């Protein structure tokens, strides 16, 4: 009887282990596939020409495969979205967790959840119909499809994840910390920013990571508002991101052509970027904890 039980236990352990390994397997599969299909084009084009080439003309008679404009655009776009989105999201989270009356809190939290549920193509569509013409009129430029439009759309898209994760972190701060601070004569606002926020630091950093991850990986919404011309990034110029570079040409690139292989290489670069960002933030999080 006991033996049978143990066998059962072991079997279930085995099944759970296998289920757990599915995720690991997927990550490995994607990594290996990307590396294998991304390397040949980089070899053929030359890593320096590929990463630092300023011109992308994949279907020209003399094709050129430089992805520096895409890399810079992705970096600027993500940084811009973080600069706009993080302060708004962070302040909203502080307000919701510490100041807002319960009714207001419920309304705002519901709105945030709804915002998170909107598909990215809808963001793109609204951006295309409202934001792009709006930017054109507001700044008196010939066309509104630009890095700025992309940054605004991305900033709105990352708001829900930043608000939700920061909110959870702020609400997890023990009440005693705040009570002690208040008892020592600090004002409520001083308490929130000097006591609660530092205590929730790692959670807020995690919120920023999530924001960066979502912003750098977004393709659909960006494709509809950024214009997609492979220019070097400028605020009011049409730009192409790493994600949109892959998405917009993949459907037409012939199998086995250098163009298709180069698109895989772009995907590989994007993948490495995301890995790098994750590793960097993990490192910072760990250090702040050790302190």
């Amino acid at each position, binding site marked *: 009887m006991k033996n049978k039980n143990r066998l059962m236990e072991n079997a279930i352990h085995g099944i759970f282990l296998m289920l757990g390994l599915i995720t690991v397997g997927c990550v490995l599969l994607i990594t290996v596939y990307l590396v294998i299909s991304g390397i040949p084009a980089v070899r053929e084009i030359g890593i320096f020409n590929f990463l630092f080439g300023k011109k992308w003309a994949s279907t020209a008679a003399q094709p050129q495969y430089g992805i520096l404009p895409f890399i810079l655009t992705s970096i600027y776009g993500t940084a811009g979205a973080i600069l706009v989105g993080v302060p708004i999201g962070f302040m909203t989270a502080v307000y919701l967790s510490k100041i807002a009356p319960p009714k207001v809190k419920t309304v705002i939290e519901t709105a945030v959840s709804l915002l998170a549920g909107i598909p990215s193509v809808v963001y793109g569509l609204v951006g295309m119909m409202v934001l792009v013409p709006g930017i054109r009129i507001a700044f008196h430029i010939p066309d509104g499809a630009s890095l700025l439009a992309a940054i605004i759309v991305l900033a709105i898209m990352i708001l829900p994840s930043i608000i939700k994760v920061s909110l959870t972190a702020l609400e997890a701060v023990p009440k005693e910390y705040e009570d002690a601070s208040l008892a020592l004569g600090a004002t409520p606002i001083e308490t929130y920013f000097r006591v609660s926020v530092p205590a929730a630091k790692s959670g807020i950093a995690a919120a920023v990571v999530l924001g960066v991850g979502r912003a750098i990986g977004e393709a659909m919404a960006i494709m509809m508002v950024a*214009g997609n011309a492979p220019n070097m990034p400028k605020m009011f110029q049409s730009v192409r991101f790493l994600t949109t570079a892959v998405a917009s040409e993949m459907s*037409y690139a012939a199998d086995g052509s250098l163009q298709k292989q180069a698109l895989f290489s772009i995907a590989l670069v994007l993948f490495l970027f995301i890995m790098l960002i994750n590793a960097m933030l993990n490192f910072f999080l760990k250090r702040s904890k050790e302190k």
Partner: protein
Amino acid sequence: MKKFVTFIAISALALAAMTGCGKTESGTVSTDGSTSMEKVIGALGEAFEESNSGITFTYNPTGSGSGITAVAEGRCDIGLSSRNLKEEEKAQGLTETVLALDGIAVIVNPENPVNDLDLETIGKIYMGEITNWKDIGGNDLEIVLIGREAGSGTRDGFESITGTEDACQYRQELTSTGDVITTVAGNPAAIGYASLASVKETVKPLSVGGIVPSEETVKDGSYVVQRPFVLVTKSDTKLSAAAQKFFDYITSSEANEIISSAGAVPVN
């Protein structure tokens, strides 16, 4: 276990879908080539399969050049090209049959007072030599060039007709006809191009050299921004029975309605 079986089944399906231009056996028609013809040939293939249940139709969207090579090497029954064959290709023993014509409309915002441009001016606009609408009879607005992404059949067709290959100074490269139309409809300074069949009232198609684009002017050749959809076959080898049946069907007047509803102008 069930999962595994499903996985195998899906893989098999995926593999079957990827083989595309396989070997030609009785009962299959394989086509290979132009991505622009996807809609037309897809609709025709579907209708054909419906009335000939024993015959399987396949289409491999690789591009006009690859399609011509594939038929020359005997890797498929019928090659699909959205341009006429070159002399050297005909010399390889290939025959072209025009299936349909596809008009490309040059579109602007309805607020734009410009109604007509000639081909040369359109080329100059797209190459960035003319940058303001006031130079060609419009308002004082900087021209915003809207185009399609690299590899698109419409872009390829437009650029080769206007002689602007690889020289277009696009402001926006959009990934679908619908996006081009929406963008042009929303910007009074924009100019774009789209397949004639998809043009809606939200934008204004320009006449080119005085000729208004329409099914008639495309068909009689007076509207010049157009390209043929060509079926490429080998001159010296006979098609298999199934392929011949398909070929006869799509070049008959029966297929005209399907071709029109897929957005092209039938010629047979």
